[in-house]
């Protein structure tokens, strides 16, 4: 179960990170040094399932090498009895104005997404655990200081989780 939420978290993480790369840190979208400088660091925040009123904390660390992005993160699922530290990875590529990314989280499943401007959309599946498919969106508030990344997730099965995730750059 924790892997599912780790995957979920990383969907959001990846979306947040790459949105930031495309718009907040590098308006030109060319993956230059400025973008790297703006994005590398630690983001912390919370996830909340608004449908069932469950919540927890999460954090990510982001690095960039040229046009390649990489992220690692951790999510606290102790509120649902699944441990305080669950991890996963994500990676992406900047290509002009577009950013594409993928994520994997153990046996949970995989997914991918694209970023355009400050908006990100994507989808994935948690089929290995029987949780079914999910979609996600995210945006970054570049006017806020520090920057805030806000996203939504939706497990598309009729009673699957629906919620939000919000991260603030430290």
């Amino acid at each position: 179960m924790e892997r599912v939420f780790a995957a979920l978290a990383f969907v959001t993480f990846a979306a947040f990170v790459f949105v930031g790369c495309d718009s907040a840190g590098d308006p030109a979208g060319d993956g230059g040094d400025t973008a790297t400088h703006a994005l590398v660091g630690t983001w912390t925040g919370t996830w909340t399932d608004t449908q069932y009123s469950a919540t927890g904390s999460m954090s990510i660390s982001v690095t960039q090498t040229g046009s390649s992005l990489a992220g690692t993160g951790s999510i606290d699922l102790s509120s649902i009895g699944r441990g305080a530290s669950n991890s996963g990875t994500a990676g992406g590529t900047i290509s002009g104005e577009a950013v594409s990314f993928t994520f994997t989280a153990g046996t949970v499943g995989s997914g991918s997404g694209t970023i355009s401007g400050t908006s990100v959309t994507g989808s994935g599946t948690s089929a290995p655990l029987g949780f079914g498919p999910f979609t996600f969106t995210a945006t970054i508030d570049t006017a806020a200081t520090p920057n805030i990344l806000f996203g939504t997730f939706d497990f598309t099965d009729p009673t699957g989780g629906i919620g939000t995730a919000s991260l603030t750059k430290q």
Partner: protein
Amino acid sequence: MERKGFWPRAAAALADASLAAVLALLLARASGHYFAIKAAATLGIGEPDSPLKGPLPMLIGMFGIFFYGLPFALLLVSLPEALSGRSPGKIAFGLEVGAADGGRAGRSALLFRGAVKTLPWWGACLAFCLEYRPGVAASALASIVLSMGFFLVLGRERRALHDLASGTAVFRYRSESEGR
């Protein structure tokens, strides 16, 4: 004729439940999806007054197309017993439903017994179809009562609540040639 007691009957029930779980998985994207949609509407999942809040309902919801489709699968697995006195689990463990006196149970007795025993399952299905929340609660309550009633098998008469209600008991299976 000796009535069968708790353990063989519990084993048969467990086998039936296992079969129903497999069936619910197979039907998850069909009937399970339908009942999950109905469950979301009936229970108001996501609405402020929904009783389903917190981690456990969330985990159940993530498996909703299985969990909310399970009553229908249990009902399907239970149908043969209501019609013939033998469920797949009872067949596996050599059991059958008979009249309390050891004779063959009548069709009406079997149907009535099946209706009582599966009240939680058809009740839940009906409640979801009608989107009637009190019906879901009543079915859950019936499930608790009947589950507790099953432990009456541990008594001297070796008859569960649904056996007592229908004038039946469970015996070792005998073929037609063996008679009673």
